[in-house]
């Protein structure tokens, strides 16, 4: 059997005054504990004004580092309940985000979407309170902006200009070559 020694047999019956003494003593001990807590700081917090801190690894509502995301859909494929949906349009290297939604009616906070991410851009956050008056409010949008940002627009324009320039240069080169060939003939 267990290594711990067996508990002691029940105590013998006490006398009448023994019982009285026992009652007084146990009441005093019990009230002593109660009074000690009366002057101690409360353990409870005034939720939702105050919140207890959650741990670093806490699995709450996701957050997305949108500038890192490359729209590879690895997280959506890894999700057992298919709660992640996303849409974006590619302009060369830049992404024009339409939406990146997580349906928290389905999500079971298993963190399986976090591991396959090649860019390490989706994380489980620390927020846990999900309260809504309508079911559609549980579908959260994780993107912070939609469409192209100003910087992206500049980059896209630059890339397009570069591409156009390259194309023009190629065309010019081809034309020059044709001219040369024509001259030779």
């Amino acid at each position, binding site marked *: *059997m*267990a*290594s711990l020694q067996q508990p002691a047999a029940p105590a013998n019956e006490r006398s009448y005054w023994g019982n009285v003494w026992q009652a007084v003593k146990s009441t005093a001990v019990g009230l002593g504990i109660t009074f000690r807590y009366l002057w101690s700081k409360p353990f409870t917090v005034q939720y939702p004004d105050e919140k207890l801190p959650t*741990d670093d*690894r806490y699995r709450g509502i996701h957050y997305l580092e949108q500038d890192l995301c490359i729209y590879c859909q690895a997280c959506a494929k890894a999700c*057992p309940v298919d709660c992640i949906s996303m849409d974006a349009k590619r302009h060369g290297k830049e992404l024009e985000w339409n939406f990146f939604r997580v349906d928290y009616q389905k999500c079971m906070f*298993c*963190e*399986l979407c976090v*591991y396959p991410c090649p860019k390490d851009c989706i994380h489980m956050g620390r927020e846990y309170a999900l309260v809504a008056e309508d079911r559609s409010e549980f579908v959260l949008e994780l993107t912070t902006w939609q469409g192209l940002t100003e910087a992206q627009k500049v980059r896209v324009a630059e890339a397009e200009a570069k591409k156009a320039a390259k194309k023009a240069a190629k065309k010019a080169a081809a034309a020059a070559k044709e001219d040369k060939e024509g001259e030779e003939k």
Partner: protein
Amino acid sequence: MDDTTMERPLREGERLVELDVRTQDVEINMGPQHPATHGVLRVLLRADGEILTGAQSHLGYLHRCAEKIGESVDWLQYLPYTDRYDYLSAMNNNLAYSLAVEKLLGIEVPERAQYIRVILAELNRICSHLVAVGTYGLDIGAFTPFFYALRERELLLDIFEKICGARLTYAFIRPGGLMNDAPAGWTDQVRAFTDLFERKWREYWDLLVDNKIFVERTANVGVISEEQAIAWGCTGPMLRGSGVDWDLRRDQPYLVYDRLDFEVVVGQGYRGTVGDCFDRNYVRMYEMLESNRIVRQCLEQMPEGEIQHPEVGLVLRPAPGEAYVGIENPRGELGHYLVSDGNKIARRLRVRGPSFSNLALAEHLLPGCMLADAAAIIGSVDIVVGETDR
């Protein structure tokens, strides 16, 4: 059935309650919403006055098609679903499933991962037994010990939250190792808990288990004989409470249990007959101490190193074949029988839940008992309906 009727000589301390007047039988629905059934279980009781004359369990209120889901999601994607059969011991469920998949794959995880797995499984066993004993007190009328039990469970949940981020459904022990390594300071937190727990354990024992009222309600109630427990396929504290010395951790050791020193607690009729409700709780109580010892040894022996098998990625394709692995869950043997055809989705995923088999016997214990003992007997089986229905 013939072998389950209660026709046997009375044991010492048992009273035969007999009524001179037979009244009309009354059918009582215990559940599906009843605090003592620990979930949505419905037991249809038939009572003649205060004496039960029949009982029938109706399952399926929490049936979530786990086995069918297993045939439609990836091997790894099924992991969060394992949390949900026995939600009080989710770490053990993860472990059982991961071991079965690893058997299909033919891999053994690194040693550090094995030690962390054992620590988590044993802490989860303490966590689960705390709820089992605490709510059992609640079932039969002792309100306070429940809060004492949940106080220590809170510390354990903090430990789990620190390592995996979740407090109930962990999805942490994955095929191939662990999701993450233990963070800094985690082992110290576990060590502090093990030191604290032995002191606190004494409180539950004095307050609840060795309480005269508790003993009166549980001793000699719902006695399961050794033969009955074996024939009905009971496992875990149900089997050990009936005096059968069987523990998969010792008798079919997996992970690193063969290097750890612990005792298998067997019911011995400390306050009544062997195999009564008291013995099942007695086994759970002492198992918590043994788990505590195991955790302490693991912390000492745990090596540094990898926590993940290097070959195992996120999409698994086990070779065609089959594997059965059963491990010792807090409630008994949790087995997974997996059949693979070489693809990334299981061909058949069978879950053998301990509560399922244990509950099958419970309805045969009830006829002949007092109506008030129904809660005591069903509570002592310690079912989690998530597992009986899956």
